[in-house]
């Protein structure tokens, strides 16, 4: 059920990743100030956007879970959030590397996107202990969905707050993430974004397929045990 379309998706992902890499290395212009390291921007920002998208999608799927009571929506939500957290590590790591290479510091408090991402990341890290400290599977799913919705609503609010604070205290604004990208950079960025998004969806489907198979196995085993007991 989940593996429908997985193969073409995987192919598309590989293709777009390859295209993105080609563009990053050969097409996009070299930045005057920051040099080669600036290119990490093409990984960092798309990763961040996809991760945040994943968190919000996880929240939406959680809403569907609560309204329908269908546990498969909870699994989808869980995988989306779980993948986004992993991507989140990548976002913070690439962000840090970029900061160090461009401005000499491993962390920048006046980069609103990075800072609010850190807060969001810290919040979502609590997803695991919360989820796995609840033993009853149904309650576990329900509480996780409540968390996913709360955290999902929190993301935009947090970004707004951090950005407002930055404007106020640190008027310097990082402009690379703005809309004003020159043509070649924009194309590279968009292809990267597409590649990251496809990668996310492919991994999501892949993990769902694996989980589904594991659950089917468990169900069969349970039925077998019941037969043997009777």
């Amino acid at each position, binding site marked *: 059920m989940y593996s429908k379309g997985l193969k073409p998706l995987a192919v598309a992902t590989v293709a777009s990743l390859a295209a993105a890499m080609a563009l990053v290395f050969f097409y996009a212009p070299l930045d005057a100030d920051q040099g080669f390291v600036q290119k990490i921007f093409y990984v960092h920002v798309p990763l961040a956007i996809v991760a945040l998208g994943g968190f919000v999608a996880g929240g939406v799927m959680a809403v569907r879970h609560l309204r329908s009571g269908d546990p498969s929506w909870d699994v989808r939500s869980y995988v989306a959030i779980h993948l986004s957290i992993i991507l989140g590590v990548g976002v913070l790591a690439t962000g840090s590397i970029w900061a160090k290479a461009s401005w000499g510091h491993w962390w920048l408090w006046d980069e609103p996107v990075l800072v609010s991402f850190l807060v969001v990341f810290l*919040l979502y890290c609590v997803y695991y*202990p919360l989820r796995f*400290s609840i033993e009853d599977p*149904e309650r576990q799913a329900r509480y996780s969905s409540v968390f996913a919705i*709360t955290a999902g609503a*929190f993301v935009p*609010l947090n970004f707004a*707050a951090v950005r407002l604070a930055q404007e*106020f205290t640190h008027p310097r604004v990082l402009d690379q993430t703005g809309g004003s990208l020159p043509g070649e950079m924009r194309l590279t960025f968009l292809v990267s974004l597409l590649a990251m998004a496809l990668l996310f969806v492919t991994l999501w489907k892949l993990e769902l397929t694996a989980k589904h198979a594991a659950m089917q196995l468990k169900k069969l085993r349970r039925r077998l045990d019941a037969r043997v007991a009777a």
Partner: protein
Amino acid sequence: MIVAARAILRKDLLIELRTKESVPAMTLFTLTVYVLFHFGLDRDSLDGELASGVLWVTLLLAAVIGVSRLFAAEREQGGIEGLLLAPVDRTALFVAKAASLFVMLVMVELVALPAFGLLLLGPGLGGALPELVAILALANLGVAAVGALVAALAAETRARELIVPLLLLPLLVPLLIACAQASEPFLRQDQGPEDLGRWLGLLTLYDVVFVLLSVAVFDYLLED
């Protein structure tokens, strides 16, 4: 719904009055944290941003204690079943618990704020009082709503004491930003309102979002 909420609130306040567990602990905690900050920062008096930051971080940390204890009476004594078996809307429970937390925060602040003025604040509190009260009111509302939600989320987990602070504090970051920024001008030597409207606006938005969200989602908690 209101009747039930009032009944639950009344019960909670009555128990708190008898046991005197949460409010004194939270208040004592804020005083202790002031002392810690004094030693940690090696400062006799604070003003402006630093004062604002210390005040709000302290209050939020104290709130964590209150949130952890919010369902304690149910867990340890009365049992949440008493509520689940009654024809009571979950929303009533949310309202009651949030109101309970709000009241406790106010009680704590009645001591914590003057104490801050006495112990750590350089410039006096006097002139800024009305504005600070407004900020506190909105802040307490937000903390109460988010706190009740987090308390319910963590109520059934084994790792409750760990989950509450880890969950509550990041969620309170936007509130902290708004409150710290809003009160900073009032805690300076040369007091004057700057952009108060913008920060109160953010606080109000935060409160509205989380009150609505919590009410919507609370029904799915505390049942099985």
